[in-house]
């Protein structure tokens, strides 16, 4: 089969699941320019050995055209690069079908998930970044975070703070659905409800972490009724005076603990309703003694499912498939049990 025809077939196969993607082919550079202007594709795959112009020259011309900057260009069949080539990706003559198909699929998956860029979106992204807590280190602990949205905006949220009494570390992590402007608003609402609950707990207005989730759940149903958004969350409180970690989960499946002297982490499983699932449910607070604990990791399942301790690495078929968020807490003060 002729090389361009073979590539077109691979692309067609790779994009089988997308019903509304149209593939156009041109058999020369000049036809290519005409078709590009007519269809303005988001992806151009250019054979470097076009009959009338080098594929790299073709790509540089397209890239410098008004609309060309918005088009991603792959040049295939490249043996060496020439100066001023402006394509985005280059592939050698020996093209591996699986890898190339994967590249195409990944490109369109990302396009598909991509939220329309707008000023609003940019502002929302900036706002979301502003909400992220600063790194925190004291004589008792050090905290790092991982916060990696799947799309432009994250449905996850994290926060933590050191209590004024210096005996407690308070925090929350939640995982909402969606990665668009609507989710951004929902994420803000959930954050406010949970943080308010944690502050009330800190001030002694409520006495259990379970009340924080229960109140947030009730408030959500009061505000939205059956349209209440469903969220997985965990709230926690490190009581350094008593050396106890208190935690309460709403649908976050687990967190990890590593003890001093151990290389592996222990998974602490949790079972509880999601916030926003049923209006009238209780959330049970649990606790763990902190003695001998070296590290605690709270995360969304988007992160925990990727850890090799949880996964058969040979079965990993997706490098990342959700927002990834984690709070990594290194303890400095606990003694061996």
């Amino acid at each position, binding site marked *: 089969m002729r090389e361009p025809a073979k590539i077109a077939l691979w692309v067609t196969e790779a994009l089988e*699941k997308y019903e509304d993607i149209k593939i156009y082919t041109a058999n020369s550079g000049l036809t290519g320019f005409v078709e590009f202007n007519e269809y303005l594709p988001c992806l151009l795959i250019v054979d470097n050995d076009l009959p009338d112009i080098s594929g790299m020259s073709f790509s540089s011309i397209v890239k410098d055209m008004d609309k060309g900057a918005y088009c991603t260009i792959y040049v295939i069949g490249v043996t060496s690069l020439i100066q001023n080539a402006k394509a985005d990706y280059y592939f050698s003559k020996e093209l591996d079908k699986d890898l190339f198909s994967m590249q195409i699929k990944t490109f369109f998956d990302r396009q598909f998930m991509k939220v329309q860029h707008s000023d609003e979106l940019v502002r929302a992204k900036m706002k979301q970044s502003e909400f992220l807590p600063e790194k925190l280190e004291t004589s008792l602990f050090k905290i790092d975070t991982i916060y990696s949205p799947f799309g432009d905006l994250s449905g996850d949220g994290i926060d933590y703070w050191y209590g004024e009494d210096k005996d407690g570390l308070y925090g929350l992590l939640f995982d909402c659905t969606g990665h668009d402007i609507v989710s951004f608003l929902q994420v803000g609402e959930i954050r406010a409800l949970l943080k308010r609950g944690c502050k009330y707990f800190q001030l002694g207005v409520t006495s259990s972490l379970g009340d924080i989730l229960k109140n947030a759940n009730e408030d959500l149903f009061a505000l939205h009724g059956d349209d209440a958004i469903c969220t*997985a969350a965990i709230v926690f409180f490190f009581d350094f005076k008593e050396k106890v970690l208190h935690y309460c989960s709403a649908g976050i499946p687990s967190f990890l603990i590593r003890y001093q002297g151990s290389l592996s982490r222990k998974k602490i499983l949790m079972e509880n309703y999601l916030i926003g699932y049923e209006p009238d449910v209780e959330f049970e607070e649990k606790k763990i003694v902190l003695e001998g604990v070296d590290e605690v990791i709270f995360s969304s399942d988007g992160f925990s499912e990727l850890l090799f301790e949880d996964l058969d690495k040979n079965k990993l078929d*997706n490098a990342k498939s959700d927002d990834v968020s984690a709070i990594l807490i290194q303890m400095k003060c606990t003694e061996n049990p």
Partner: protein
Amino acid sequence: MKYVTINGAVATISVEGRFDLCRTVEVQAELTSAYQQGCTKVLVDFIRTTYIDSSAERDLVKTRRKVRPENFSARNASNLVLAALKTAKLDTWLKNE
């Protein structure tokens, strides 16, 4: 349709392998089409599903709400899928098995 089959008023969702955020968009699109064709009940068959993440779970919660709980059920959850449902106490969806 790839993930949803229609049998009378029942739309059956069956996702092979991972049921995660990437799949939920496609499943929802197919479900919308199923509703338009008159489906009023949803059954989730996990027989081919090896993993479900929280995004998919929450999406199913929305679906359950949309068709009302009495018209929503699930079956054949095992291993990781069953464990994930139990984590959020959603294994009650399987109660009629």
